């Protein structure tokens, strides 16, 4: 409750032009925004872009933001939807990187189960990855996820179920 109040105060101060307040919001939300994007797109450079573009979108919409609403879900909605768009676009057209794509951080640095989990996530459809990330990384309820992604709750549940089944198989292997 206290942290919600504090976040509301930070948003209010940021709307009034306080860069310190906005920096606190940025610092507290960047890691989760970046990880969420990374797990959906599986590409560290793209995840950085998506997290950054989401914060830029937040800056542009800051004056219109309703302070009674929590900042996190609003930002995560932007992050996850952009990450899904990016994944769909990459699926449809080949992207070439002049220096070669960077491996996802999870693939690069986390051994064992994390690697299996990253590989399992990479095998899912972007929409399934998104609901898994929202549910288990960002800890939203299925009802909240349905609102964030503009989906029926039943669709969220079925994507969660199928995604988890495929992830379990990947981790077991």
């Amino acid at each position, binding site marked *: 409750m206290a942290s919600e109040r504090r976040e509301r105060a930070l948003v209010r101060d940021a709307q009034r032009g306080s860069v310190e307040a906005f920096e606190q919001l940025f610092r507290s939300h960047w890691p989760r925004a970046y990880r969420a994007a990374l797990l959906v797109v599986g590409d560290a450079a793209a995840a950085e872009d998506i997290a*950054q573009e989401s914060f830029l979108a937040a800056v542009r919409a800051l004056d219109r933001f309703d302070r009674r609403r929590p900042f996190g879900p609003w930002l995560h909605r932007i992050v996850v939807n952009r990450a899904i768009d990016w994944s769909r676009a990459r699926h449809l057209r080949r992207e070439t990187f002049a220096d070669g794509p960077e491996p996802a951080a999870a693939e690069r640095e986390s051994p064992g189960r994390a690697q299996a989990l990253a590989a399992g996530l990479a095998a899912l459809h972007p929409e399934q990855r998104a609901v898994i990330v929202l549910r288990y990384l960002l800890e939203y309820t299925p009802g909240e996820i349905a609102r964030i992604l503009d989906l029926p709750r039943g669709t969220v549940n079925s994507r969660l179920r199928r995604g988890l089944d495929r992830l379990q198989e990947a981790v077991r292997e």
Partner: protein
Amino acid sequence: MKRLFDAIPVDAEAEERGWTVVRAAFAAREPRVRRSRRLVPAIVVVAAAVLAATLSSPGRAVVNAVRRSIGVEGAQTALFRLPAPGRLLVSGAGGTWVVSADGSTRRLGAYSQASWSPHGIYVVAASRDELAAIEPSTGEIHWQIARPTISSPRWGGSRTDTRIAYFTEQRLHVVAGDGTDDTRLPPSRRVVPAWQPGTNEHVLAYVDVRGRLTIFNPDRGVVSRLSAPYGGVRDIAWSSDGRTIALAAAHEVVVFTVSDGRARSVRVTGVRAVAFAADGRLALLRGNGVLLLSHGRVRTLFVAPSRPAGIAWSPDGRWLLSSLPLADQWVFVQTRGARRVLAVSHIRRQFGGEPSLDGWAPSA
């Protein structure tokens, strides 16, 4: 699962890069503030006084005297026609406009920067968050993509296959002429990139973070360096035959021959912009002057009463256009035969704000 997710390392440098960009965007935004009610009448009074002074004949005389001292005398009061065939593309606060040779204008939309496609068939235009391919004769939008903070769009390629380069806040990108296949390039300086003309390959020249002239071929994904690092690079430009490329650095202008990498340096400091004419002469914008570099020699073409901004060659290479923002004028200088200078005033009024010169293409 949550523990494993939380164990994913977050690159601290990525966070700092992100904060640098986001902080800049935050600083650039104007927070909604309530104006002091007492201040409003004061502003109105001051504005009315300024307006009255300007409209009164002594006031108008002062404004005209200032204009004369920073602009070219005898300027036309409006742009009635271009002195050479072709279509001029300009962009600014009033949007992107195409000016025909007969002086007629068409506004393409609320874009701040634009460039012609390689054969002048289309226009690529950028607003802050949007890149659009537009039909110049009708203003019809063929496609548009959204990206944050787009700038400096440049279109290159052949009639059948083209590419567009543009900057976002952080990176140089290349996208296919139909708006697909977005590719992000390695970090670079914010010098406007340039496509090699006259080739079926797609070859983009840009300046990398160390100040080296760099070539990128998006078809092969190959990046190659063409030069050693230069300090203070302001502009680059290809010759129209695509054989040479000029680079304006802090203390010199360097012309590279692409086939053998040979570089010829001319010591001219403070060049802000370079542009090749169709016949290979290179125009340089420096101080208040427009210079011409030809056969290794630099000569002054024109010295303006105030600082010019931007240069555009007419397609036939006979005229060169520059703008004088302080004087609210455009200046057309004839570069062959008798030296003629034609100035046009009230540019901001005609285009809804100060426009930059985005290119002069042949007639459709």
